[in-house]
């Protein structure tokens, strides 16, 4: 009897925790399909006639459309460049660097931890003086600090987990270093590397401060979304909810992937 009560309680408590985790998100998604009159009610409405009006407003709004396009370009290119420069560097760091490895890794990590304001302020002056203020190139350039360092940081352990024997066997067969990297290490580490790229993508997709500071007209989606609040005198909650949903979708698509990535990191991190 006591154990039954305890079990019911713990089930209830866990259900409540899941509710706390998800309800805010679900509520926002519901809100994005509501007309303003269904949002501005004294009693929250669960039953309403769904409307796509909010999404239509958003997609018709040129600044949001541009923001979305800019986000895709800036995030896409900077993550791609991050992968191009970061992954080979991570491989060499994992396999071939011994003496300076700790120093290099510390340098990479310290960049990850640099306060964005400390990057934004000097860069805004330099960008204004050199004329790349408010350009996508400028944003991509400054995002390389995050993408390259994050890719290296997360990919080194991925390469360290590749069995050394396979690479040694390949070397015996006369494969060159580049061949060993491309044909053996890269495919074996690929799932973990993909996880690290997803993580990097989410990080840059969510970035606000640098985009807010270093661009004006040509900014990314978070900046445009942050400025919607000041449209008109009545707060357009439906539209805000809809733009939140658009902002949230890409990262949430990757949730399963990130989960298996965490599993792998944790499983090999402790032995």
């Amino acid at each position, binding site marked *: 009897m006591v154990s039954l009560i305890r079990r019911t309680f713990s089930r209830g408590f866990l259900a409540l925790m899941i509710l706390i985790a998800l309800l805010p998100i679900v*509520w926002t998604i519901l809100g994005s399909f509501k007309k303003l009159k269904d949002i*501005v009610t004294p009693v929250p409405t669960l039953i309403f006639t769904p409307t796509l009006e909010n999404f239509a407003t958003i997609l018709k709004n040129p600044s949001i459309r541009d923001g979305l396009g800019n986000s895709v370009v800036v995030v896409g290119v900077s993550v791609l460049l991050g992968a191009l420069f970061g992954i080979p560097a991570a491989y060499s760091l994992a396999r071939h660097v011994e003496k300076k490895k700790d120093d290099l890794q510390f340098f990479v990590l310290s960049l990850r931890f640099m306060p964005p304001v*400390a*990057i934004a302020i000097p860069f805004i002056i330099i960008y*204004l*003086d050199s004329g790349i203020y408010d350009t996508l190139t400028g944003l991509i350039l400054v995002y390389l600090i995050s993408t390259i360092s994050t890719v290296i940081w997360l990919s080194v352990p991925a390469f360290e987990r590749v069995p050394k024997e396979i690479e040694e066997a390949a070397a015996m067969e006369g494969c060159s270093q580049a061949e060993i990297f491309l044909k053996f290490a890269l495919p074996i580490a690929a799932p973990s590397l993909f996880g690290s790229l997803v993580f990097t993508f989410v990080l840059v997709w969510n970035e606000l*401060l640098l985009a807010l500071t270093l661009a004006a007209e040509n900014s990314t989606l978070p900046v445009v979304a942050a400025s919607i609040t000041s449209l008109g005198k009545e707060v357009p909650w439906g539209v805000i909810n809809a733009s939140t949903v658009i902002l949230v979708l890409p990262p949430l698509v990757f*949730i399963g992937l990130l989960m298996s990535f965490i599993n792998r990191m944790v499983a090999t991190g402790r032995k």
Partner: protein
Amino acid sequence: MQKQRFVFWTLAPAFTILAILALVSVAGALYFSVMDRSLRYPDYDFVGLYNYQRLLGDRRFLNALKISAIWEVVTVAGSLLVAMFLSVYIFENTRSARARNLICLAFLAPVLLPRVAAAFIWRFLYSPSLGLINYIAGLFGFGPIEFLANPKLALFSVAVVDIWQWGLFFTVIMLKLLETLPKDPIEAAQLDNAKTWEIHAYVTMPMLKAPIISLALVKAVESLRSFDLIFVMTGGGPGTATETLDLYAYQAGINLGGRVSYASAMSILLLLITTVVFTLVWRGIRKWSA
């Protein structure tokens, strides 16, 4: 020979780019902090340590320093405590792997949200007139609470959102860590009739000391960059009740007449604080885990 070339060509491009960008921002901030450059006037002179000197007498800066310190303590401690409690609770009260996976997926969702999105979601929930939280509070007889407009509540209301994102995320990681722990010490403690909470307080948590410290480090540094969340939820207000260092640096450098030199001095101080904390903890981790 061929191997050396390979190593050089893989490392050199990445580290050259990183080094140049890092040098530009650090040297740039240092240089501008001893000038009197503003965004409005491109002409400037050398002023030495004048900006730093003024910072120390700036009430608003000292307030931002205090707010940042409170923010750090509340969010780091809050996230870790939530994670420790919930992960142990889930570990003890769920048996099936499927239930655990479900919980983990739900708990991962908040941290994946862009900070701007999380900020919008909670501003909506916190709203005094149409927010869900005030509606529920109303059912229990509590009048509408001005979560974000009350200077005493605002900082903690924003901190709740941060803990909602990071506390739940850390719960997932800690749960995964608990699952990887060897069973023997736990079983030995059970044989000694130790209570469940005693086992976790004296056996499992000490075994997880190193990863918990790294989580604390990640969170401490991450908390220093909560600009997005605070900017969208309160804009630093009401008054300066939620204005942290990065918010003030942004305001001073961009909005208040673009005093970029003053903001540079502030970001150099912020950089110093971050570096000292980060280096100390990094050394600590390596000592403990070695």
